[in-house]
């Protein structure tokens, strides 16, 4: 039985890199695209997506979009620029402040969650607009940890055409980032959605990625029960809290359910892959 100390999330970055660059290239070109657009936050995940996509399609075929809000940290902008300069991808900066301020003015009582969600969705609007303008598809940046914990904005940062990173835990992405040669400043800073000043993922979630990734690996990949995870050395409240999050936010991982009426209903008995015919 695995325990908290001998869980090994080490990946072979070369294998992962081969599969993911092939995935990006294939899934775009088979539907007639050669170009991609990526929202570059200055953080680790979008930097990795950008590196992989540039490798898959060529940097000239990638548009990296920086979308700061007026309170976004300068470091975030600077780190995104370092990725752009290093890869030589096309780039654009669009400040979303003017998009979201009218909403915040109308609802001054809006809390940080509402404001953060609005910003994430404003960025989605910009990316999907550029997707059409740049004749490209949006490549996603959500990782397995945040998808399982529901730590994302529905129709916001989770919106994309394809997601190369969604089956890698945050700690595994860190290994991939090192192998890809992502700038040290991005690798070493604490993960943050940068939705408000001083926000960090781990501060907001209440645990570290190193801890939660190992627990998720047991719960999801290894199919351990809650009791097994506790026996493996995880604190009972931590295990039950994480298990609850996985269940509670499952809706974010699915298309909205369609009420079945006919004999053949989309999602239930009308089943085709997206890659149908390609």
């Amino acid at each position: 039985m695995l325990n908290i100390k001998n869980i090994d999330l080490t990946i072979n970055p070369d294998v992962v890199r081969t599969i993911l660059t092939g995935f990006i290239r294939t899934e775009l070109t088979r539907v007639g695209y050669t170009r991609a657009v990526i929202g570059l936050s200055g953080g680790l995940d979008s930097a990795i997506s950008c590196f992989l996509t540039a490798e898959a399609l060529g940097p000239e075929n990638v548009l990296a979009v920086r979308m700061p809000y007026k309170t976004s940290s300068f470091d975030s902008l600077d780190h995104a620029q370092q990725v752009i300069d290093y890869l030589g991808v096309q780039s654009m900066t669009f400040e979303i402040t003017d998009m979201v301020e009218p909403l915040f003015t109308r609802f001054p009582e809006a809390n940080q969650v509402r404001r953060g969600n609005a910003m994430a969705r404003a960025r989605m609007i910009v990316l999907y607009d550029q997707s059409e303008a740049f004749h490209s598809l949006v490549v996603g940046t959500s990782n397995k940890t945040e998808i399982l914990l529901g730590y994302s904005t529905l129709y916001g940062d989770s919106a994309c055409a394809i997601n190369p990173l969604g089956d890698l835990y945050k700690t595994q992405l860190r290994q991939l980032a090192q192998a890809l040669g992502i700038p040290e400043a991005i690798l070493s800073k604490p993960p943050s959605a940068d939705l408000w000043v001083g926000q960090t993922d781990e501060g907001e979630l209440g645990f570290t990625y190193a801890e939660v990734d190992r627990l998720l690996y047991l719960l999801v990949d290894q199919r351990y029960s809650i009791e097994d995870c506790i026996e493996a050395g995880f604190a009972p409240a931590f295990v039950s809290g994480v298990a609850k999050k996985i269940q509670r936010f499952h809706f974010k991982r699915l298309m909205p359910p369609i009420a079945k009426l006919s004999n053949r209903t989309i999602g239930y008995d009308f089943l085709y892959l997206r890659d149908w015919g390609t």
Partner: protein
Amino acid sequence: MQLTLALAQINTRLGDVPANLEKHLHLASEARASGADLLVFPELSLTGYVLQDLATAVAHRPRPDDPIFRPLLEASREIDLVVGFVDEDPRNRFFIASAYLSGGQVVHVHHKLYMATYGLFDEGRFFAWGDSVQAFDTRFGRLGILICEDFWHASPPYLLWLDGAEMLLFTSASPGRGISREPVLDSARWVEHINQAYASMFTCFVAHANRVGYEDGLNFWGGSTLFDPSGELLVQGKYHEEGLVLAEVDLNQLHRVRARLPLLRDERTSLVQRELGRILSVRLPNDRGVV
């Protein structure tokens, strides 16, 4: 006797049979030009793998009057072919199938016996279960075909061995999965282990043609192999890259290996039959023969 075997480690277009046919015919010419005698395509090579509701729409019957099989049968006058397709039987059941074509004739059709229906697999929802496993005679001796999940059960390779197959032709559309610190995916290691084990235990040739490419988020890892009757790896295709994998097969090696290691001679088939009869009589088998 020498045989040049070719494994077509291809990508396919999902549900586009004419496009896949064109690729088959092109590769048949290329393999022939490279000196190959037999070209083996992966599982569902004419259709793509995750067919779901496409399963019934892409079905064909391996007959000379079928528009897809007519040109394949024509090509088989130059080079023997194993092709993967969906077979619609006379009573309109749909099978995952592989056909052996040679000299313009359909020599053998194998229906996949085991429908993988767990984890990421959902074959049993869309396909019928095959119900026979037989070796067949070719100009290169007696061969046997199995499709992916078939060879995750020990009995089909064992039965083909007893039925005289000297080379087992395995075909797959194996989704890549299982990342670790190792340079090879878990799924690739698992398949390579059992291929090598069958070659060693049955002192026969074991060829495996696996596809490459992607279907939605699934990747197919390629890495097609040929193991010899000593269990040695003779050739392996690259992981994740399309290619024609060529191998020289020296069928006289069967003589030499079995002189050293007479496992076939010593196999106690009557004991197997007797014990199997006893086991099945005292323990009620379910429909699929599991005790």
